[in-house]
Structure formats: structure tokens, C-alpha cells
């Protein structure tokens, strides 16, 4: 008989089997139903992978992708000027490199570094392929891969480079615009009109401008919707609801027809690209606004009150206290919206633009009729395009998760 009134000693938890066999038994073969489901799903997965690999290796039509790469990448952008978009890629990657290096210096570079190395890897692979197969763009791609490495080193070793980033980004982006558009004359800096742009170049321009502009616009609309001033409030509500009320295709049409009408000019004065940009950006901003509004509603009222009680102005309390918390809680929705915008740019063919997807579609009928019915060409190009879209969308989603994790520091 034990009458001990002392504390109960801590005991270790019961042992748990380790290793792959135990794991499979626990997770895949626990009970008959579980076992059957595991076997069926396992068979389907193996069959699908084997089929896919066999098709990918057997299929002769990958050359269609390879042969049309220039069209898919840049459409009618003059071949002798391809170094300009390539340098644009290099410039942006270099800016990311300075940012990643500077962040690393401060000891917080996981996300910036991850995004940088991922894009760098892509450019490096292209550069290697260019060195082997594409003599005309060998030099630009090599430079576009090497300059960012130098920029990374610069950001990591020179503190001033990191501090100047706030200036370097806008300057770099202006430089990129000049690179893509050109300056004038007949030489290497001649103007390339946007009707010549296309392919993945166009998709990237649409998506990045759309995302970068629609985010602040969406935040502004969300704040406006909560404004005390009725005029601003009702205006923002009207814009948000109207824009969300119709499909993107409709807005592309309307922008394409209405913008020249409103500006009272001929349709050629405002390039189709600009019209599409307006539509895509506004459309995304309306959704962004509702995401942000959801985040704002999730911030407890006490946060704003505490900020105001400390003497912060309404704008300071919104910018420093409420908005950061609101945005953090809706990162998944914001990134989801950005990924959606990236893929939705494939609708701009409606207004006569030749984006990545449209080129892929157009390339197919230009093949010999015999090939169209063998099932090869359409499939290979579609798979290639899907992989490219998914590649970028996946990286955005990874960055989103990293960002959430990083910003969640200290939260219970």
C-alpha cells in the first residue's frame, strides 16, 4: 500500500515505432478500407507517372516547342534587338540581387534570397542553353546571368547599395521601360512599338505591372470604402462593385473600345497594351480591395483606439498599426489574387494582343495539317505552356507561405 502524497514523477511517452515500414503501416495500411484505398491510389499514381514519362520520351513533337521558342518568348520583337528585353530581365534580377544581398547583410535574407536564387537559376539555365545553341543571344544572356551575381555581391558588401534600393528600384524600372520601348533613331536603340511585343515578354509585362499597380490601388479602394466621407465611400463602393460585377473579358472589350472614345482620339493613339493594362489592373484592384477590406475588419477595434490614445494621427494609426496587421492576415488571398491575375493575362488576345498563351495557340494551326491530327503538336505546346505558368505560379505561392511564416513571428 502506497500512501505517497508526493508529486507524480514525469514519465517518458510510450515508445513509438520509427522507420518507413512503421510509417507506411500507420499511414497507408491501417485497416482494410485504408489499405484498399492506398493500393488503388498508388496504382493510379504509378500508372499516370509511367504513362507521362513514356509519352514525354516517345513524343517527337517537342521540336515544335523548341522551334517556336523565339515566338513564344517575344513574338515579333526584332531579332537583332532581343538583347534589350534580355538586359531588362538582367536589370530586374540585378535589383533583386542587391536586395537579397542587403537583406542577407542584415541577417534576414531567406525570402529575398530564395526568390533571387530561383530566378537566377532560371536565367542561368537559359544562359547555358544560349551558349550552346543560340549564338545571337549568347552574350546578352551571359551578361544577364553574371550581372545579378555581381549585384548580389555588391548588396552584401556595400552598405550604401542596400540603403539606395529605394532609389535604385524606380530608376531601374524606368531604365527597363526605355530598354523595352527604345529611344529613337534607326540603330540599336530604335523604338519598338508595343504591337510588336508578345509572348512571355508581354505576359510578364502585363502581370508584373498589373500586380504592382493593383496592390496599392486595391488598398486605396479598401480604405476609401471605409471612409467617413460619403462621396469617397460611395465612389469606392461603386468602382469595386461595378468592376467585380462583370467578367474580365468584358472590361478588356470596354477598355479597348471606350478608352479611345473617352479620350476622343483614334484607337491607334492609345496602344492596345495600355488599354489591356488599364483593364487588368482595375479588375485586379477591385478584388484586391475586397481582400484588404476583409483583413481590415479582422483587426480588433482596440488596436486603432490604442494608437489614437497614444496621440498618433488617424493616418499614422492606419499605416503603422491597423494596415500591417490587416495585410498580414490576407497574404494568402492577395497572393492568390496575384496568381489569378498572372494566369488571366491569357485573356488579352480578346483585344488583339499576342501573349504567351495566344502565341502557343496560334503556332499550332501553322503546322502542317498532318501533324495536327496526330495529336502531337497541340499537346506538347499546351504541356509546355502549362509547365511555364505553373513554374511561376508555384514560386509565388512558396514566397507567400514564407512571408506568412516570417510575419507570423511572435504571434500565438
Amino acid at each position: 500500500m502506497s500512501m505517497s502524497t508526493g508529486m507524480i514523477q514525469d514519465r517518458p511517452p510510450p515508445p513509438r515505432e520509427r522507420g518507413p515500414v512503421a510509417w507506411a503501416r500507420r499511414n497507408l495500411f491501417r485497416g482494410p478500407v485504408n489499405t484498399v484505398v492506398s493500393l488503388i491510389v498508388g496504382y493510379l499514381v504509378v500508372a499516370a507517372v509511367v504513362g507521362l514519362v513514356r509519352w514525354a520520351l516517345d513524343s517527337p513533337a517537342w521540336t515544335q516547342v523548341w522551334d517556336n521558342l523565339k515566338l513564344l518568348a517575344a513574338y515579333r520583337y526584332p531579332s537583332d534587338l532581343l538583347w534589350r528585353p534580355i538586359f531588362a530581365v538582367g536589370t530586374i534580377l540585378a535589383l533583386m540581387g542587391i536586395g537579397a544581398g542587403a537583406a542577407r547583410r542584415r541577417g534576414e535574407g531567406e525570402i529575398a534570397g530564395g526568390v533571387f536564387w530561383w530566378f537566377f537559376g532560371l536565367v542561368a539555365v537559359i544562359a547555358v542553353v544560349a551558349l550552346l545553341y543560340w549564338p545571337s543571344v549568347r552574350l546578352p544572356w551571359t551578361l544577364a546571368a553574371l550581372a545579378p551575381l555581381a549585384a548580389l555581391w555588391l548588396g552584401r558588401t556595400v552598405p550604401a547599395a542596400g540603403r539606395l534600393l529605394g532609389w535604385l528600384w524606380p530608376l531601374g524600372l524606368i531604365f527597363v521601360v526605355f530598354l523595352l520601348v527604345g529611344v529613337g533613331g534607326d540603330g540599336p536603340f530604335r523604338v519598338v512599338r508595343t504591337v510588336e511585343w508578345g509572348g512571355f515578354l508581354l505576359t510578364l509585362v502585363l502581370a508584373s505591372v498589373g500586380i504592382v499597380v493593383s496592390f496599392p490601388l486595391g488598398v486605396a479602394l479598401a480604405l476609401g470604402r471605409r471612409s467617413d466621407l460619403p462621396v469617397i465611400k460611395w465612389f469606392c463602393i461603386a468602382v469595386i462593385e461595378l468592376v467585380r460585377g462583370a467578367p474580365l473579358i468584358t472590361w478588356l472589350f470596354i477598355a479597348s473600345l471606350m478608352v479611345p472614345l473617352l479620350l476622343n482620339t483614334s484607337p491607334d493613339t492609345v496602344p492596345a497594351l495600355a488599354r489591356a493594362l488599364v483593364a487588368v489592373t482595375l479588375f485586379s484592384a477591385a478584388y484586391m480591395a475586397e481582400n484588404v477590406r476583409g483583413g481590415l475588419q479582422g483587426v480588433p477595434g482596440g488596436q486603432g483606439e490604442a494608437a489614437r490614445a497614444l496621440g498618433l494621427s488617424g493616418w499614422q494609426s492606419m499605416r503603422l498599426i491597423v494596415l500591417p496587421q490587416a495585410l498580414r492576415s490576407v497574404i494568402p488571398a492577395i497572393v492568390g489574387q496575384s496568381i489569378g491575375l498572372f494566369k488571366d493575362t491569357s485573356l488579352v488576345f480578346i483585344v488583339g494582343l499576342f501573349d504567351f498563351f495566344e502565341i502557343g495557340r496560334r503556332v499550332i494551326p501553322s503546322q502542317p495539317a498532318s501533324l495536327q491530327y496526330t495529336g502531337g503538336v497541340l499537346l506538347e505546346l499546351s504541356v509546355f505552356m502549362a509547365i511555364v505558368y505553373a513554374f511561376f505560379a508555384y514560386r509565388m505561392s512558396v514566397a507567400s507561405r514564407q512571408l506568412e511564416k516570417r510575419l507570423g513571428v511572435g504571434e500565438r
Partner: protein
Amino acid sequence: MTETPNARPPADAHAPEGGEKIIEMAGLNKWFGDFHVLKDVDMSVNRGEVVVVIGPSGSGKSTLIRCINRLEEHQEGSITVDGTRLTDDVRNIDQIRRETGMVFQQFNLFPHLTVIDNVTLAPIRVRKWKRSKAEERAMYFLEKVGIPEQAKKYPGQLSGGQQQRVAIARALTMEPKVMLFDEPTSALDPEVIGEVLEVMVTLAKEGMTMVVVTHEMGFAREVGDRVIFMDAGQIVEVGPPEHFFENPQHERTRGFLSKIL
């Protein structure tokens, strides 16, 4: 005693003569929609005084102190804090908020900022202090509330008692002339209430002007200069704590005290 519950109470809670009045309220009325939440409130606080406001929930005591820094807007009457009249003028409101610190029931620390950033934010942004000065003052007050070692942590990593002490340090670093406490211990676990009250007692004894809405009668007895009892939006009874707790004059006061003591 012929006092009946519905009789007009002596709704006058003016501070003793001779002191320098830092808060003055006269004929204050406020409605939430149709609900008359503050009725003809007259009250003032002297510099260095500790005024404790008690009363049943829904009696308007939180609303009363939230009117002092305009977290709630009153419809009738006047409020003057440290010579500044509370009007719609944003400059006056900001002026008053700079000089009044507030501590909330739910702490309301900023969860995305570290403790030190919580405390230095307003001094840097509102008082325009240099970061070095703000951090030095912040550490002084974090030491005063007993948790300087938590400065680099986030609020979510702290216990409730620690969070509330950070909130007090955050308000104090602005070097306010008045501190408002809105039920500062009501959301705390019983075992950590003491550590927060201790800080408040120290403050009171150092001469800080304080208006405290609380259910902690021990605190009211120990450091309160005056106790104000509110019920149904009115100030029912006012008095020094010894008089107030030993010999309450009004039926409603007695009823309330008998329930909580």
C-alpha cells in the same frame, strides 16, 4: 434616510478646493443611439489626485473615462483637460491625447511590433524624439514596471500580467500628465493581478494623476483619494475611500458594495 433609488442624486464630483484642476467635466451628456449612457455628469480631478470610479457593468464608467481622450464623443457639456477644451478641433484632440496615457482592459498592445517598438512608437512618431532617447526612456519605464528583459520579445510571447505592464510602460513613456485606466485587471488571471496593481500603487504614490475604473476595492482603499460610484449613467455618490466603504450614504451604493465586498 429617505433616499429612494429614483431620487436625483448629488451628481457633483468636483475635486477639493485649493488644488489645480487638470480635468474638468461639466453637464456631460452622452447617448448611444437612443440610450442615454451619461447623464448630467459633473466631475473634476486635481493634479496628483487618484480618482477611482466604481459601479455595476453598464453604468457608464468606461464611457466616462473614454470621453476624456475622445475615444467616445459626448453630445452635451464640456470637458477640459490641462487647459485644453475638448472640441471637434483635431489639434485639440491630439493635444489632449498626447498628455493623457490610457491603459485598456484588453491591453491592446500591437502584436506585430516588439515590446520596445510598442513603447517607442508614439514617442518617436508623435513627440518626435530621437530613437536613442525614446529607447532610453522606454527602458527606464520597462524597468520601472519590472520587465526590461522582455524588450525584444513580441507581446504574444508574454503573459497577460506582463502585457498589461508593457501597456502601462507604453503609456508612461509619452510622459503624460494624466493616466486613465479602464478596468486594467479585469482580463487578467487572478495570480497576476497583483503584479499589475503593484505597479499602479507605485505610480499613485509617486504623485501621478490617475483616473481608474476598476473592481479592485483594495486598490481603491489603499491609494484612492476619492471614490466615485456610478449607476445608470449618473454619479451617485462621491467620497474618500474610508468614508465611502465604511459609511455609504445611498441605497444603491450600499446594494452594490454588499454584492462585491
